[in-house]
C-alpha cells in the first residue's frame, strides 16, 4: 500500500471522475436545495400575509340582530354591522311609489326596489350607511337630517345623493348603498350577516 501513503490525509486516493450529466449532480443538489428553501419561505410568508386579515373576534361581530318593532313608517335607525353603520328604514307607501316610478334603465347602478328588499317586506330597506364613493356616512337616517334632493340619503363629503331605495342618483359615488345579506326571523326581527 505504498501509493496510499502518498495521499495526504483527508483526500481521495484517485482523482474523482464523473460522467458529465445535464443537469450535473451539483446543479441538481443546488436546485433541490433552493426549491426546498423556497417552499419553506412560502410556508412562512403565508401566515405573515394572512395575519393581516380580519381576526376571529372581528369576524365574530359579523352578524347583527335588529328589532324592527319600534320603527314607524317614515322612520330610520342607525345600527352597526361589522363596525360599519347600518341603516334600517321603514319606507312609507309614498316613498315606495316614488322609488318604483323611476325608470331603472336610467340609473347609474340599475336595480329595482324589489331587488333591494325581501318579497312582501318592500317597506324594509336595509343598507350599509357607507357612501360607495369614499366611505363617509351619508345623512338622512337621523331625525331632521338632510335627505338630499331625492329624499333618501345625502353624503356631505362629496355631494352624492341617494333616492328612497338608497340608489345613487347624483354625485361621484359609483354604486347604490350596499344591501348586506339578511333574513327575517319574524315580522319584527332581522339578522344581518
Amino acid at each position, binding site marked *: 500500500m505504498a501509493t496510499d501513503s502518498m495521499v495526504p490525509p483527508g483526500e481521495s486516493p484517485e482523482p474523482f471522475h464523473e460522467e458529465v450529466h445535464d443537469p450535473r449532480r451539483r446543479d441538481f443538489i443546488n436546485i433541490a436545495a433552493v426549491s426546498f428553501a423556497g417552499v419553506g419561505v412560502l410556508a412562512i410568508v403565508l401566515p405573515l400575509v394572512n395575519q*393581516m*386579515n*380580519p*381576526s376571529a373576534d*372581528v369576524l365574530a361581530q359579523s352578524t347583527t340582530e335588529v328589532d324592527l318593532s319600534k320603527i314607524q313608517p317614515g322612520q330610520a335607525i*342607525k345600527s*352597526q354591522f*361589522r*363596525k*360599519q*353603520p347600518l341603516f334600517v328604514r321603514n319606507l312609507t307607501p309614498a316613498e315606495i311609489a316614488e322609488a318604483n316610478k323611476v325608470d331603472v334603465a336610467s340609473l*347609474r347602478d340599475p336595480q329595482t326596489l324589489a331587488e333591494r328588499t325581501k318579497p312582501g317586506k318592500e317597506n324594509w330597506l336595509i343598507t350599509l*350607511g*357607507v357612501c360607495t*364613493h*369614499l*366611505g*363617509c*356616512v351619508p345623512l338622512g337616517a337621523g331625525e331632521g337630517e338632510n335627505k338630499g334632493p331625492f329624499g333618501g340619503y345625502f*353624503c*356631505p*363629503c*362629496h*355631494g352624492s345623493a341617494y333616492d328612497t331605495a338608497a340608489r345613487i342618483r347624483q354625485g*361621484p*359615488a*359609483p354604486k347604490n348603498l350596499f344591501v348586506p345579506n339578511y333574513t327575517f326571523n319574524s315580522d319584527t326581527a332581522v339578522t344581518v350577516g
Partner: protein
Amino acid sequence: MSFPWAKHYEPKQPLMRWLDEKLPLPRLVYNAVGAGYPVPRNLNYFWNFGVLAGAALAIQIVTGIVLAMHYAANAGVAFGSVESIMRDVNAGWFLRYAHANGASMFLLVVYVHIGRGLYYGSYKAPREMVWLLGVVIFLLMMATAFMGYVLPWGQMSFWGAQVITGFFSAIPLVGEPIRVWLLGGFAPDNAALNRFFSLHYLLPFVIAGVIILHIWALHIPGSNNPTGVEVKGEQDTVPFHPYYTAKDGVGVGVFLLIFALLIFFSPNLLGHPDNYIEANPLSTPAHIVPEWYFLPFYAILKSFTANFILDAKLWGVLAMFGSILLLFFLPWLDTSPVRSANYRPKYRIFLGILLVDILVLGYVGGAEANARNVILGQIASAYYFAHFLIILPWVARSERPRPLPNSITEAVLAKHGGTSIAHSAAQA
C-alpha cells in the same frame, strides 16, 4: 467615488488610527460629509434643504420614539393616551406639538428640495438614480405621515383612514378584499390602528436607509450646482467641511426659528379642530380634508366626476397615484441636455406656471367641492399632467438655451467682477 483631489483621511491621534484600522467609520463620515467630499464652490441656499430634510427626520425620530413611550395603540384608549400626553406627561405637549409640526416642516423642506431639483435639473444624467431614490423617499414619507395622522384616533384620523383605504376599493374585483386585508376588518378599528402604529414606527428607519442610498448615489457624480455645469477641476470645488457645514448651519438656524414659532405660538395652525373629537364610526365630519401637504393630490383625486370606460372613482385614484409615479419618468421626459433653468428661458417660465398650478391644486383640495372649484381643479389637474407629458418634451426640443459658462469658476468670477477666463486662470 469623488474627485481625485479629495482630501484623504489621516488620523493623527493614535486612538483614531487604531480605530481606523479596525472599523473605518470616522473615515466614512469624513468622506461623506466631511472635508473629504469636494463640493462645487457656487452652491446657493437652496442646497441647504437636503440637510434640513435630514435634520427634520432626526427630529421626528427622536420625538417619535419618546412619544411612543407614552402612547397606547388601542382604539379604546388611543385618544385618551394622546390627551394624557398633552396634559399629564412632563413636557408631553411640547413633544407632541414638535412631532406634529415637525411632520409639516419635514414635508415643507422636502417640497423645496424637490423644487430645487426641478429648477436646477438635478434629476438629469448622471444623477437619475439620486432622483429616483428621492421619489421613493417621498412615497415612504407620504405613507408614514398618513399612518401617523391616524394614531391620535380623532375624527379626522378615523375618516382619513376610511377614505384613504377606500382608494383601494376602487380597484376592480380584488379592491374590497385588499381593503379588508389592509384594515384587518371591515372598517378602521383596533386592528388597523395597531398595524398603522407598527408601520409608522418602522418606516422612518426605512426612510433613513434609503437616504443613505440617496447620498451614496449622489456622491458618485458629486453635487449639482446652480449653473448645472459639471465640475472641471479642483478650482471649482471646496471641501464640504467646513464650507458647507457652516452654510448649512445657518439654514438649520432659520429652520429651527420657524419651527419654534409654529410650536410655541401657533401649534394648531396646520391641524384640524375636528381631530380633537374622538373617532366616531357613525358620524362623518361635515368637511373632510387631508393635511396641507396632501391637498394638491386630493384635488387631483376629486377632479374626476364622470365615468369614462372606468369608474370616476377609479380614474381619480389612478390619476392621484399617477401624479407621483410620473416623477419616476422625469429624467427621460425632459431630454434637454442643459440642466439649470437659469440657462433655459422657456423651461423657466413653464416651471413657474407649474408652481402656480400646484398652488391652485392645493387651494382646490382644501376648498368646498362647488361647481367653480371642480372646474378649476379639473383644469389644474390636466395642466399638471400636460406639463410633464407634453410641455417638457416639447420645450426640450424647441428651446434655444442661453450660452453656458465654461466652468463653475468662470461663472463665479463673472458674478464677482472677474472679467475673463485669463483672469480666472491666473488666480487658479
